[in-house]
């Protein structure tokens, strides 16, 4: 087992394309680090550099304190689980799992024992003599896991291992992988584009965009204190509502369209940098669960509500997702569009504000009677508002 450290690791392809830019990451023993980002963010390239399948253009990769930049994959003692599982089709499950041990000339009895143990751990005991073609997607995924853990590697690398499974199986395997990873206690890199996977599995999550590390932290950190607009828009489902807003000259109010929200002292103390934005434009972020149907509780204090027109109500059983239109300018940036999967990226300036009405989502109690066409009054959890600089896209904190 070992820690893995990436120090300013970059990947530049011969055509000049920079897939990963000066990536700094530190993964300790037993930690599950999730690399998450949209397509083209460089997460898989970073993983492949750790595996040794891709040359490192610059920077240093350390495993257990040793520089391994020039070591061949087989000498790094890493085990990788691929998106397509990459099982050897001509070998049985047992042969697949034990193949790497056979190559290391481990005695046959020991191979048999280790394969049996791994199969038991993964619930594959009855399938050891089958070929991969005779297994379901979930079983193949488990074989791929078995192949990785039986080697007792220093580092686990997983490249979107659940993306070929159906939704139900994905949820099941998500917890199984977490369980197995905790049990074997090996430093693990887990690549995914699914932020739900990232949030539920990662001890820490590294968010990448266009080859650059945006933020690294615990899932809760990323959710509650996103460093920039990209992370704010990417982490969370449904995504954070982002509106153009104006801080009042006195600094104790923020105006979203024609509506005004008061900024409590606690919020301003937690974000001292907000004082520098008096009478200036900002981007306000409101998580969908920070909007509450005001009709369900006591009358909200003044300056803590937003009016919006309900367009659609989705009942999920435990909550309602209310899609609404609000009189405010929407926020469009390359970062937010990439984060939310908006397709049109070309020609969008760093930050563009505009439009009279903006869409938003609220997650509210199923007891609410709101329906499409209603004029809703949402109480806003003011302490949980997020603020971003419209020019740099960075969060306004200290």
């Amino acid at each position, binding site marked *: 087992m070992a820690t893995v450290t990436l120090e300013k690791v970059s990947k530049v392809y011969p055509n000049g394309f920079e897939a990963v830019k000066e990536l700094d990451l530190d993964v300790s023993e037993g930690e599950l680090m999730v690399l998450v980002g949209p397509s083209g963010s460089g997460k898989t390239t970073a993983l492949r550099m750790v*595996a*040794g*399948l891709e040359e490192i253009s610059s920077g240093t990769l350390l495993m257990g304190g040793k520089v391994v930049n020039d070591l*061949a*994959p*087989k000498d790094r003692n*890493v*085990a*990788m689980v*691929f*998106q*397509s599982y*990459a*099982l*050897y*089709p*001509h070998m049985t499950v047992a042969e697949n799992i034990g*193949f*790497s041990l056979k*190559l*290391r000339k481990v005695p046959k009895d020991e191979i048999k024992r280790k394969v049996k143990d791994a199969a038991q751990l993964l619930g594959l005991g009855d399938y050891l003599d089958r070929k991969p*073609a*005779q297994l379901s997607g979930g079983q193949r995924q488990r074989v791929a896991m078995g*192949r990785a853990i039986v*080697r007792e590697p220093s580092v686990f690398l997983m490249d979107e291992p659940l993306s070929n499974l159906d939704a139900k199986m994905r949820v099941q395997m998500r917890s199984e992988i977490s369980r197995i990873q905790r049990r074997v206690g090996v430093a693990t890199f887990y690549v995914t584009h699914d932020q739900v996977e990232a949030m539920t599995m990662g001890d820490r999550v590294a968010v990448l965009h266009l080859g650059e590390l945006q933020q690294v932290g615990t899932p809760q950190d990323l959710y509650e204190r996103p460093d920039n607009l990209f992370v704010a828009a990417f982490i969370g489902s449904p995504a954070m509502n982002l509106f153009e807003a104006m801080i009042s000259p006195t600094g104790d109010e923020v105006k979203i369209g024609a509506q005004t929200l008061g900024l409590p002292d606690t919020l301003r103390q937690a974000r001292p940098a907000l004082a520098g934005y008096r009478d200036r434009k900002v981007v306000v972020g409101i998580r969908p669960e920070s909007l509450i149907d005001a009709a369900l509780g006591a009358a909200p204090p003044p300056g803590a509500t937003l009016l919006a027109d309900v367009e659609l109500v989705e009942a999920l059983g435990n909550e309602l997702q209310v899609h609404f239109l609000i009189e405010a300018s929407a926020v469009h940036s390359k970062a937010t569009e990439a984060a939310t999967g908006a397709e049109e990226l070309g020609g969008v300036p760093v930050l563009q504000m505009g439009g009279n009405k903006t869409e938003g989502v609220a997650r509210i109690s199923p007891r609410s009677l709101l329906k499409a066409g209603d004029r809703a009054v949402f109480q806003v959890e003011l302490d949980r508002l997020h603020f971003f600089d419209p020019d740099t896209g960075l969060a306004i904190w200290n």
Partner: protein
Amino acid sequence: MSVGSLATKDNRPDRRRPHAPKRGVPSRARFVLRRIRKDPASIPIFLALLVASGVMLYPFGFMLLNSLRSQSQYLSGSGFSTASWSALFSYLPVGRELLNSALVCAASIAIILAVSSSAGFAFAKLSFRGQGALFVTVIGCMMVPLQSIIIPEYVNFAHVHLINTYLGAILVYAGLGTPFATFLMMTFYRGLPEELVEAAVCDGLGYESTFWRVALPLAKPALATVAVLQFIQIWDDLLVGLLFLQEPTNRTITVGLGVLSSGRVVAIPELMAGSLISALPAVIVYLVFQRYLVAGLTLGVNR
């Protein structure tokens, strides 16, 4: 084996070809009838195919029928005898020639398989300096007609005393067959997921051992295709054998038949008997391995 396990095995769907029609003539006839009933416009297509089959099968019928006649029976068009078969075996060392053909075929195919399977892997899965130029050269070799190089080849082989030796003919056949076989193998290896090779590399294999332990075992169907195609081509070839194997002791069966038909008087029934013997191995190989042939020839189509 228990009844239960038998039942399970019988009920198990054919995973390789889940929609494959049942084998045998009746099921095929049923398929044709069903198709015609469903789509009467397909009748002309089936008629055309029927005529084409007749054209293909006629020579075989002609060979079989006339090999069972003596020269006089052949000329009169009636009666049957085995005289031509007895005469054929007395004129020609048929066994020896068949053995020569088998030897030349086996050795040539072995060389072709060895070179094409490894070269195809290198072109498909590795990147190396000069790869593009080398690949174009291999493809270029496929386009050179045999007839245009056979004389210089003969002269060169004569210089190194390889005329009238098995080795000479084997090298020529291997040289002619390898470019296409390499192309075919490369197409197959390109279909293998990149991740499979990378998984092997992570497991501790080098590229060479990945070839031996992962790629080659998976390439069995492609290797079978190459072997069958080359077998039919080499077994049926006359020109190379005629030039490079002229001694009566090392002639192949096609060269032997060529000699038989080059006399002043040509006995058609004996020639037909010889042709039948010569054609039979290729036909059998084709019928047994036709699944591989179709699979091999459509490699890369569904991608």
